[in-house]
């Protein structure tokens, strides 16, 4: 069995990113689209922490903290928008919100 190296973490992170992208592109429910965005941000964090561990520096982990802060802000604002949207249009399906569609 090969020892676990950075390549394993990079492959895992790429797979998680692709799964999250599939969720964003194919699901109709906005709540699940927001969850898929969380998956994508976590994939980025795995990458940052893997390289931070390899080089023995903490800069990658600091960046991961900032990514988590952004994820929190995005989730709070996104869910607030979702509640406002549900109050006005009675739907949480992304393709029924087509007011700006020509």
């Amino acid at each position, binding site marked *: 069995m090969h020892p676990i190296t950075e390549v*394993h973490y990079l492959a895992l992170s790429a797979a998680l990113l692709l799964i999250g992208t599939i969720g964003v592109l194919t699901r109709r429910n906005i709540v699940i689209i927001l969850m898929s965005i969380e998956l994508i941000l976590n994939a980025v964090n795995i990458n940052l922490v893997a390289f931070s561990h390899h080089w023995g520096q903490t800069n990658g982990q600091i960046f991961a903290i900032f990514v988590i802060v952004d994820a929190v802000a995005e989730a709070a604002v996104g869910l607030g928008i979702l509640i406002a949207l549900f109050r006005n249009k009675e739907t949480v399906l992304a*393709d029924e919100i087509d007011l700006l569609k020509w």
Partner: protein
Amino acid sequence: MLIDAVFFYAFALLTLGGAILTITRRNAVHSAISLIVSLLGVAGLYLLQHAEFLFAVQIVLYVGGIMVLFLFVIMLVNLDQMARERQFNRGWMVGLAAVVAVGVEIGYFFYRGQDSFKLPEVAPPPVSLGNTEVLADVLFGQYLLPFEIASILLLVAVVGSVVMAKKRI
């Protein structure tokens, strides 16, 4: 080293399995529970890489904070009739094909770039302080300005989400 590999594959299975369940479940609450499993797997991966502070942050903030927020919103918006509708949008095949194309591309890069992954070995720095102390030193020294900007971002997000979600200000 074998125990490392066992833990890595266990956490990777947890992460990817939870992620796949998240994007395929019909019921949004089941999706949220699967996402919690996936985030716990990521937390385990942080622990394997000696990022103990991020491990704690991941559990306290993601699993304890964001996911509770998600579950609250799922209960606020009535998702019962949404669960009975079609779950994937009409262009799902195009989206899936695009993602598969990107996946093949990334796999090809991994295959062709095998040699460049042989990074030079770096001697680990002498461990004198714990992970949290080291992070605090760097965060409040070198990265003080980004830290303050992040706090302003959070303030804006708090005000923005209250303005969005409240009926009448």
